[in-house]
């Protein structure tokens, strides 16, 4: 492959971000255009037109699937399941979602209502033995019923189909001629526990038609623009997939919102030779954090969305309702609270002058002086200090604090919630934060990171060079990554390494097959096998990489168990699932070297309040003006068009050759 031009496009709530780069090259261009929520493909297309459509690959992050699931918009979908089990989808796990709220329904409505749930006569046992053969004669009546209901998509999920997929495969084949979209559970999630597999398959089927239409629309438009490159989509697992794969498994995009930024953080950590990092994305409404160990972002086998479990590998992102737009308020007892209500992008913080009246975290920064009123926020918004003060004055009066102290206090309250989230994914999972670097992005992340790192005992913060378009950058730097799981229950004591390697073969073939169809040779594909293991009789599993040797596997399991649970017992271990991730490196993207002018001079001075210093004056730099490795002494502000980086009193900063700003925190 020659040098290829790539475009990354990430659609956010307000802006659609684009980056374009050359494989192995040193230039990187970026652009923001307004998102068009009513016709998502239009904003994408306008951006691509503006940045120049010619590309070998267009890598795209979209939330159309996320939004469809949260809003309960999907195709008219039916479920086909084993006789006497059609209510599995409705009974769920029989627990209620909120312990004390009697005004709410205890469970979310099932994604497919009962009259759209059908049964077929068949039964397979846990070991894959066919107990009752599939009664194929039932099919014509079933098809008639589906057609009468106007069903556009069908999910098939039979009991124990992970162990014997033949009945599902036959049904899928038989339905393909009459139903446009069919999703079979053994292809989507061949894993035991019937409720979670049913929901995952049902939701996948429900969003297949809308994903297909979106992609078809986008592909046709791109072709008209002359952008002939392949279209890749960002998945919840932080990797990309082809448009073909996305049509079969659109649900893999369901929680991809934060994935671009995490993918870019992992890439940055590897590029800078950092082992461990926390990706910290503080946006307008929410803050997302994710732990990266040994350059790899942590994943979870299951996430919840809209009340439903989605059992496809996803980045282990923890989200909290606190961001730059979070509203500061006093509760009935007079306590000062931040969020979870947010002023969002519209009307936005009071200081934007777009009609927002409530004081937000952004307003608190303006009043405390840690965000300069003249700082440009997306070139379209100018911050007005007077409006921020007017919003905060009544709150300060009610809590009886001077204005600046009240503002700094609100920031401290917001930080307390973020500290909890970061500790949850790190300290509480057995990691020592002293070994980690905090990678801060999102509009407000670089303002808060220095303080959080100090509280957490972390020694360094990095504010990436392209933080403003970090999610779009993540799309171009991350690899194709396809996941496949297969339940396989067996005691490790009863197997050999050779057995296990043999067990992985069909899985390897299944995961590589679509990649082959997309034109990737076997030599381009890296397979990363792993196993879900547990001590015999336990009810929860840990994913451990397979490195070809059972003794190594046992040791790795015990080491992981010790890190998470603080003990290992040496008892018998059993396997419950095999997993394979197929990775296709689509060409190294080197971070371009920084081309700032490097005068090293601050362009302004500003006054800010910090609890430990009182009001103090601090220099303001443009990031473009920073000289390479020029020492910066906190307090100082470093501005770029999309975010302000705050170096707190006592901290030191410097710019590296890629333009990233590093903040050192002495313990």
């Amino acid at each position, binding site marked *: 492959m020659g040098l290829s031009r790539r475009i990354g496009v990430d659609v956010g709530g307000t802006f659609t971000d684009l980056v374009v780069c050359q494989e192995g090259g040193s230039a990187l261009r970026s652009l923001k255009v307004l998102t068009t929520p009513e016709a998502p493909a239009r904003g994408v297309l306008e951006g691509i037109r503006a940045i120049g459509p010619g590309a070998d690959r267009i890598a795209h992050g979209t939330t159309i699937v996320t939004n469809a699931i949260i809003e309960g918009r999907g195709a008219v979908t039916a479920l086909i399941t084993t006789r006497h089990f059609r209510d599995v989808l409705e009974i769920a796990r029989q627990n209620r979602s909120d312990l*004390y709220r*009697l005004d709410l329904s205890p469970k979310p409505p099932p994604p497919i209502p009962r009259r759209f749930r059908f049964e077929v006569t068949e039964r397979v046992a846990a070991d894959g033995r066919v107990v009752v053969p599939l009664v194929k004669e039932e099919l014509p009546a079933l098809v008639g019923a589906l057609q009468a209901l106007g069903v556009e998509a069908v999910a098939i999920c039979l009991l124990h189909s992970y162990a014997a997929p033949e009945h599902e495969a036959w049904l899928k084949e038989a339905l393909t001629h009459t139903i446009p979209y069919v999703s079979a559970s053994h292809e989507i999630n061949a894993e035991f526990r019937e409720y979670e597999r049913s929901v995952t398959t049902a939701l996948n089927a429900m969003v297949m038609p809308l994903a297909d239409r979106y992609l078809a629309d986008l592909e046709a438009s791109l072709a008209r623009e002359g952008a002939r490159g392949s279209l890749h989509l960002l998945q919840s697992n932080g990797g990309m997939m082809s448009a073909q794969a996305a049509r079969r498994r659109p649900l893999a995009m369901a929680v991809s919102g934060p994935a671009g930024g995490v993918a870019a953080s992992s890439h940055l950590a590897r590029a800078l030779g950092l082992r461990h990092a926390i990706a910290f994305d503080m946006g307008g409404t929410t803050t997302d954090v994710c732990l990266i160990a040994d350059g790899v972002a942590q994943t979870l086998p299951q996430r919840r969305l809209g009340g439903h479990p989605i059992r496809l590998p996803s980045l282990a992102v923890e989200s909290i309702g606190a961001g730059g737009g979070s509203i500061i308020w006093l509760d009935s007892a007079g306590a000062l609270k931040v969020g979870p209500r947010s002023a969002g992008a519209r009307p936005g913080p009071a200081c934007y002058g777009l009609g927002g009246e409530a004081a937000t975290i952004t307003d608190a920064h303006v009043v405390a002086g840690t965000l300069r009123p003249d700082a440009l926020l997306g070139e379209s918004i100018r911050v007005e200090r007077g409006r921020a003060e007017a919003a905060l004055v009544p709150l300060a009066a009610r809590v*009886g*604090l001077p204005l600046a102290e009240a503002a700094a206090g609100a920031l401290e309250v917001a930080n307390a919630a973020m500290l909890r989230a970061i500790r*949850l994914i790190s300290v509480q999972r057995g990691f020592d934060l002293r070994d980690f670097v905090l990678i801060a992005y999102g509009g407000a992340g670089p303002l808060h990171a220095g303080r959080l790192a100090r509280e957490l005992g972390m020694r360094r913060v990095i504010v990436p060079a392209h933080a403003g378009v970090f999610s779009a950058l993540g799309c171009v730097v991350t690899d194709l990554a396809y996941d496949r799981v297969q339940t396989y229950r067996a005691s490790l004591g009863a197997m050999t390494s050779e057995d296990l390697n043999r067990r992985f073969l069909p899985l390897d073939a299944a995961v590589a097959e679509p990649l082959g169809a997309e034109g990737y040779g076997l030599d381009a594909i890296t397979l990363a096998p792993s196993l879900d293991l547990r001590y015999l009789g336990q009810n929860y599993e840990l994913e451990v990489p397979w490195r070809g040797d059972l003794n190594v596997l046992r040791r790795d399991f015990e080491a992981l168990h010790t890190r998470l649970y603080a003990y290992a017992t040496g008892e018998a271990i059993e396997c419950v699932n095999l997993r394979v991730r197929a990775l296709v490196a689509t060409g190294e993207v080197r971070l371009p070297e920084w081309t700032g002018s490097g005068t090293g001079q601050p362009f302004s001075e500003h006054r800010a309040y910090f609890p430990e210093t009182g009001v103090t004056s601090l220099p303001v730099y443009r990031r473009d003006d920073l000289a390479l490795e020029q020492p910066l002494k906190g307090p100082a502000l470093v501005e770029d068009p999309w975010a302000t980086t705050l170096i707190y009193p006592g901290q030191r900063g410097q710019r590296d050759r890629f333009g990233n700003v590093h903040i050192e925190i002495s313990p």
Partner: protein
Amino acid sequence: MNQRAVNPITLEVVRNAIFAIAEEMSAVVMRSARSPLLKEAGDLSSALTDARGRLIAQGKDIPIHLGVMAFTVKEFLTRIPRRQLREGDQYYLNLPEVGGNHLPDVKAIRPVFAAGRLVAFAISLAHWADIGGAVPGSYVPWATEAYQEGLRIPPIRVFTRKGAEPSAMEFILGNLRGREEREGDLLAQYAANEVAARRLGELFERYGVRTVLACFDRFRAESEAQMRAAIRAIPPGSYEGEDWVDDDGIEDRPIPVRVRVTIRGALAHLDFTGTGSQAKGPVNTTRFVACSAVYYSLKALVGPDIPANDGCYRPVRVAVPQGTVLNPSSDAPVVGGNHETSQRVVDAIFKALAPALPERITAGGPTTSGLLLFAGRRDGRWYILYEVHGGGEGAAAHRDGGHAVRVHMSNVMNTPVEVIEAEYPIEVGRHELRVGSGGAGAHCGGLGQVRAYRLLGEATLTTMLERRIVPPWGVFGGAAGLPYRITLERDGAVREVKGKETLPLRPGDLVTIESSGGGGYGAPSARPAELIENGYR
């Protein structure tokens, strides 16, 4: 009370910090305990109290533990004088009469000192998978004495600042099955309390003892003010309610649970006079569990978001006469009462308050664990399968009841069919909604469920469930739901199984449980026409 004004910022930061401490305690227990219930079902609670044992913060406020965490340290202090406590001590206990519920829930208590004085306690509660007694797992449905239910641990010092006290540790571990696992549980709770003590120490150090204690007072005062306001929203008056426990498994007659709820201004008084006498079988429970049910009911009905702490409960008085099924003598068996009778207390309160809070209550639901316990051998190993069965939720003023769900004091998940069939010699032939089981009404009760178990080997079945005889109640003209029904089909003959029974099973036996439907709300004739049944009936 410390009336010193606290900086509102500090107040919020301390609030976040103490909830984070309680969360971290729970994470430590879940990480390092060995009992599967702790990991999967999260059957544990962590809390902080002040030096007088008054609850300050409770992580993840599980209903059954509300009243327990509110009382354990207070009751502990009536047995162990404060002057006897030293930095680094940790006491363990499980006596139901010392602010407890049942023997498997073991509590570890650690006093926390700052600037040389006792300032707080950390308390960690965890459900151990075995606590000794007559059978593995310590679930003894036929018990008639507390002593059959397991080891009774009065407050005993197991750790000092020098480390574990070997004789105390040995006394506990030597009386339980699964010694290594239990040691893991015990050490997990120790570790959780140590983390709490360290984090609290940092907090006191950073903000000063007086300030943090003033914050504690504020948290209690805030919750108290919120609860008072919530109670004021209930029309004043005196309301009576009663419901019945099916039976105690020894004698075949229902046991009444009666409550008189008096609302006067911002105060609520709940008097359980008239409740049935202490039972022979294990459906007794403690007054602390009765308080859990009271606190749960008030939170659910009028204050779901009020943080659970001592202030929250100050405007609530609970009177539980001695010698009743809710306040038995210390030698009475209690293992089932914890999850069965506690639910009946909620029923009685909801029935009492229905006329006062018609928009808030739900009709009667599956207020039972619906427990079927299969025990047997497979490949030479003992297995115990605990199967709990939710049912149809009672209907409410604005909605139908949910289908096949857990309500009120319990929220344990089911076991997937694909797990049962792979790991136990049992096949599940049906797992579906029980159509027609919900009580009719303007809003209908939710549907129960049907699950059928085919035995592949010999086993013992133990049942411990309620709502088999006394059905879930309808309200304001709504019909009752169908009650639970358990049947055993053997060689073509079908017989009913009682709600508290132990019986041997043979290969080929079919045990079918149909769980209760929810009670209806309002007259069926008033049902809005637009509510389509979606094929449920």
